[in-house]
């Protein structure tokens, strides 16, 4: 293995693998062949609109007339003159901090249980994915109101214990937590990815561990967990990016308002309101780029931490 160059996409240049110095093992030609679809996509479809939105963030643009250069005015207004922007930041950070770890914990827990070869596995797996299948449909909004309204099912249940609950979904103190609950309830996608990752762990490793006399707990700690870290890392990064950009839950449940009293005003919902309701697309673009900076920073930190806890099968151990 030492003769093979470690392949540090994320690892530092001097990662775990010993680097053969001086000899280039670059395969630019072949690599370009494999990268061709993506390079075409970037050059033709993606890069133009991205740069355009960066330019628009420095203009006043109302969608219908030509953009007017405004320099950093949009950013200045964002940071110093917009109280609702800080509300949107607060809501979004709260949502990310709660929903990402909880959703991943649920997804991983259920995936581990479902990976134990029980009978009726296909049924369970499909049923646990159902809520995610509903996505952001209108039906979800109606459902959630039925559960968490003042006369909803949750409060009916609490009444049995003499507790007179509030209208969870439409109370500024609790509304965001009902959206966090919704996000946890839709843990299907990371669960499926965890299951695929668990499937990839070779049975031989478990057999070897069993020969060494390891019980289920030791197998989990010594085999499952380390080999699953790349997938845990992937799910973590993707949930992070998606939660920062969360839009649909609040959009359908608050009917696009981010209410009550801006308590579910997600970052992207506010961006959408400014861009498409108030026709201030320049301002909305500035918000988008600040969000890229925020997500980029957190994702960058995640990648920096990865070298300490993510174990790849292609690295020499």
């Amino acid at each position, binding site marked *: 293995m030492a003769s093979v160059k470690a392949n540090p996409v994320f690892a530092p240049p001097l990662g775990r693998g010993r680097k053969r110095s001086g000899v280039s093992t670059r395969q630019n030609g072949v690599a370009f062949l494999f990268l061709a679809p993506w390079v075409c996509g970037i050059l033709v479809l993606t890069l133009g609109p991205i740069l355009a939105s960066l330019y628009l963030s420095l203009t006043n643009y109302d*969608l219908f007339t030509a953009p007017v250069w405004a320099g950093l005015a949009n950013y200045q207004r964002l940071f110093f003159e917009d109280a609702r922007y800080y509300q949107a930041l607060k809501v979004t950070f709260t949502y990310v901090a709660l929903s990402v770890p909880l959703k991943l914990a649920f997804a991983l827990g259920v995936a581990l249980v479902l990976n134990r070869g029980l009978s009726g596995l296909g049924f369970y797996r499909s049923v646990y994915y159902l809520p995610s299948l509903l996505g952001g449909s209108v039906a979800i909004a*109606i459902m959630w109101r039925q559960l968490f309204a003042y006369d909803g099912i949750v409060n009916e249940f609490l009444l049995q214990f003499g507790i007179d609950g509030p209208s969870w979904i439409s*109370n500024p103190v609790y509304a965001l937590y009902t959206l966090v609950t919704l996000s946890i309830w839709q843990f299907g996608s990371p669960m499926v990815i965890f299951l695929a990752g668990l499937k990839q762990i070779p049975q031989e490793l478990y057999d070897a561990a069993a020969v060494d006399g390891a019980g289920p707990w030791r197998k989990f700690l010594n085999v499952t967990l380390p080999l699953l870290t790349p997938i845990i890392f992937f799910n973590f990064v993707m949930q992070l990016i998606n939660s920062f950009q969360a839009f649909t839950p609040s959009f359908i449940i608050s*009917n*696009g*308002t981010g209410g009550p*009293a801006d308590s579910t005003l997600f970052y992207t919902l506010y961006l959408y309101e400014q861009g498409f*309701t*108030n026709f201030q697309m320049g301002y909305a673009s500035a918000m988008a780029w600040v969000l890229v900076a925020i997500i980029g920073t957190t994702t960058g930190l995640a990648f920096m931490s990865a070298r300490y806890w993510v174990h790849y099968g292609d690295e020499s151990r």
Partner: protein
Amino acid sequence: MAKAISRRGLGRAAVLLAGGAMMSRWIPSASAQDQARIRFGGFVESQEQLKQTIAVLEAYMAQNPGVEIVPEFTSFSAFTDKLATEAAGGNAPDMFSVNVDLLAEYAQRGVVTSLDEYVPDPINLADYADGGIKASTFDGQLYAIPNDAIAPAIITNLASFQEAGIELPPPMFTWEALADVAVQLTEALGPRFWGLEDAGGNYIPCDIFLRSMGKSMFTPDHQFGFEPEDLARWYAYWQDLRDRGGVPPGDVQALASSDDPSTSGLVNGRAAMNITLTDSFAGFQALVSDELVLHLLPNGFEGGDMKQHHYSYAGNSTAVWSQSPHKDRIIDIIRFMHFDPKGIELYYRQSGMVPASSAGREALAKEGSEADRKIVDYLEVLQKDPAPPRYPGVTGMSGMLRRANEGVAFGQLTPMQAAEQFISEAKPRL
């Protein structure tokens, strides 16, 4: 491309699936040289309205073989985003439905065409309700043709009043009387039931409240027509009703969104009255089994003089894209829908829309449904003593009003602070 909409039912589907549309999935549709292809974007008011709109367009195409009209309909909120994107890309539909609140934005920025040169010939609006025309006018020019007439009203559940043993208020009554009757209903039918839904975040009732004081939300020259303390009085009115139990507490009220009857307290059986617009009436009636009626909003205060302050205006209107090459043709299509006997018959029959013209309303009163008749009668009452029309507002206004009202409801703002917050948010957009 197959003329998808010129065939009906299964035949239409068969043609679509047999490959008529196969090509158009991958190659942009284009018409033959001698054909005018006109795109008509719009939002769905009801299944009937969608069906009738398509029928009237088909009838027009049958009479004019050289014209192809492509309907592009979707739900209201989706349509607004779609139109904004298409207009930004220089690819708006040739003709499209607009909501009057957005008309000022579109007119200001040159998205829609001034229609003055087509009035009165071929579009003669002499017979149209003044309020509808005024609402479609910006900066002295007409920018849209009103399709249906709407007006503010209190949608009222008769059964609740009967059950509580309370008389309906008379047509002309005060804001104080409305509050009293709401509190009585709550006392009779509560808990978990309220006499009235909180309308503190709605523009139109607020405007009528201000007009009852001799002020108004906006003036004809697009300035505020009120002082901060006037608006504070509005927010205080609703806070007082919350304290007395006449309207639900803030968190229960927040379950309802202003533009979706299915979320309202009236439909979900927790309120007897809802202040909204007449075009929602059928939508409310479809979702409840009890009989609903339309009632006027209050028209004055105790000790003050009573005067009719309601105005009717245009709900759904049709505008013409400023860059369309087919303007004359579009005007002819609008003429067909509004003035041709065959067109009127198809466009308004059972479409749930109330025509903006008197002739159309008379026809509807004769043939329409129970709900149609109630709305026509209600609008007639307003026509007897017409109030000044509503003036265009600003975009995002409904959100500003609602947030200020919620701020009061959840104890974050005093009524005065709420009024100031609204003014500071709306002022830059005047």
